[in-house]
C-alpha cells in the first residue's frame, strides 16, 4: 500500500470576510482599471473553481465573465450591510451556474435531496489509503462530481474553498444548519463512493 502524502495543505484564507473598503470596489465603480485588476486577481480563482465544480470547466470561464460584468454594470446593487463582497460575487456566480444546470438539478438545490439521508457509511474502508496523490485527487474529483448539486455545492464551498458555514449559508441562501447537515451527508456519500466496493480495488 502506498501512503498518500498531503503535506501541501491549503492555508486558511481570509478573503471570504473581505468587505467593500478593503477590495477597492469604490475605485472599480469609478472605472479604475488597476483596482479592477486587483479585485479580479483576488476573486476570479475561487469563483472559477466553484463554477468549474458545479457546471464544468468549459462553462466556468463564462460564469466568471458574466459575474464580473454584472458587478461592473450594476455596482449599486452591492449592499455592504448585507454581506461581504465575496458572498455577493458568489451569489451572482451561483445565479449564472443555476442557469446552466438542468431543471432537475436546480430543483434539488432548492430543496434537500433526501434520498441519501440514510447514508452513514463512515466506518467503511476507503480506497484513499491505497492510491497515489494524483489517483486520490482524480478519485475524489469523480466522487464530488457525482454528488447531487446541493451536496456538491456545500462540499465545494466549505471543503474546497474553506468557506465558513455562515459564509456558505450566505451564498446558498439557506440556514447555517442546512449547510452543516448537507455537508455531513455529502461527506458520508463521498466515503461511500470512495469505498473499494464502489470504486473497485486499485491496489
Amino acid at each position: 500500500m502506498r501512503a498518500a502524502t498531503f503535506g501541501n495543505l491549503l492555508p486558511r484564507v481570509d478573503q471570504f470576510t473581505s468587505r467593500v473598503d478593503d477590495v477597492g470596489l469604490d475605485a472599480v465603480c469609478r472605472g479604475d482599471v488597476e483596482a479592477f485588476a486587483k479585485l479580479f486577481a483576488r476573486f476570479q480563482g475561487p469563483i472559477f473553481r466553484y463554477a468549474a465544480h458545479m457546471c464544468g470547466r468549459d462553462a466556468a470561464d463564462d460564469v466568471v465573465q458574466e459575474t464580473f460584468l454584472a458587478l461592473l454594470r450594476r455596482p449599486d446593487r452591492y449592499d455592504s450591510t448585507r454581506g461581504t463582497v465575496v458572498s455577493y460575487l458568489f451569489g451572482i456566480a451561483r445565479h449564472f451556474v443555476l442557469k446552466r444546470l438542468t431543471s432537475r438539478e436546480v430543483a434539488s438545490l432548492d430543496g434537500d435531496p433526501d434520498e441519501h439521508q440514510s447514508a452513514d457509511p463512515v466506518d467503511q474502508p476507503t480506497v484513499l489509503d491505497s492510491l497515489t496523490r494524483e489517483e486520490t485527487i482524480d478519485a475524489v474529483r469523480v466522487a464530488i462530481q457525482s454528488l447531487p448539486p446541493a451536496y456538491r455545492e456545500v462540499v465545494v464551498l466549505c471543503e474546497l474553498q474553506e468557506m465558513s458555514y455562515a459564509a456558505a449559508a450566505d451564498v446558498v441562501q439557506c440556514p447555517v444548519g442546512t449547510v452543516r447537515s448537507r455537508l455531513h451527508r455529502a461527506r458520508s456519500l463521498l466515503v461511500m463512493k470512495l469505498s473499494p466496493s464502489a470504486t473497485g480495488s486499485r491496489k
Partner: protein
Amino acid sequence: MNEPQVNDRLTSALRAVAADDEQLNTSAAVQARLLAEVGSMARARRRRTRIIALAIAAGLLLAIATPVWRARVRPPAATRAAVVSESGRGSADEVSTDFFPLAYSNVPAPAGHMVRIQVPRTALASFGVTSFASADDASVLADVVVGDDGLARAVRFVRLVGK
C-alpha cells in the same frame, strides 16, 4: 478503519483536491475582455462627466452674462439723455425706435459705448421699419451700441423732432 480515521482521510483528500485546484484559473482572454470593458466604461464615464461640466459652465455663463449685457445695452434714460446732451444735440427732441439686436448681440461685453451715425434710409427697411422717416430724407440717424471689443451689439434709429 474507524470513523475519525475515515473522516481524517477524507478531509486530507479534499484538501489535496483543493490544493490541486489552485492551478485552475480564469483564462487570460476573459481577463482581457473584462479589463477592456472597464476601460470603455471609464471612458464613457469621463465623456459624460465632461459633457455635464460643459453644460453647467455654459449655463452659469449665460446666467451671469445675460443680465450684465442687458444692463449695458439698455442704459437708463438719464444716461441716454446725457449722451445726447454731450454730443451737442441737447435742445432737440428726439424720437427713437427700440433697439434692434445685431449679429453679435449674444456675445457678452464687459463694457461698451453708443455711437451715433448716419445711415441710408434704406437701412430702415432691412429692420422692418417702414414709416419712421419721411420719404424726402436720404439718410437717417442711428445709435449703435458697440462693445469694448469693437463689435456692434444693437442699433436704434433716431429722428430729431425739433429740427
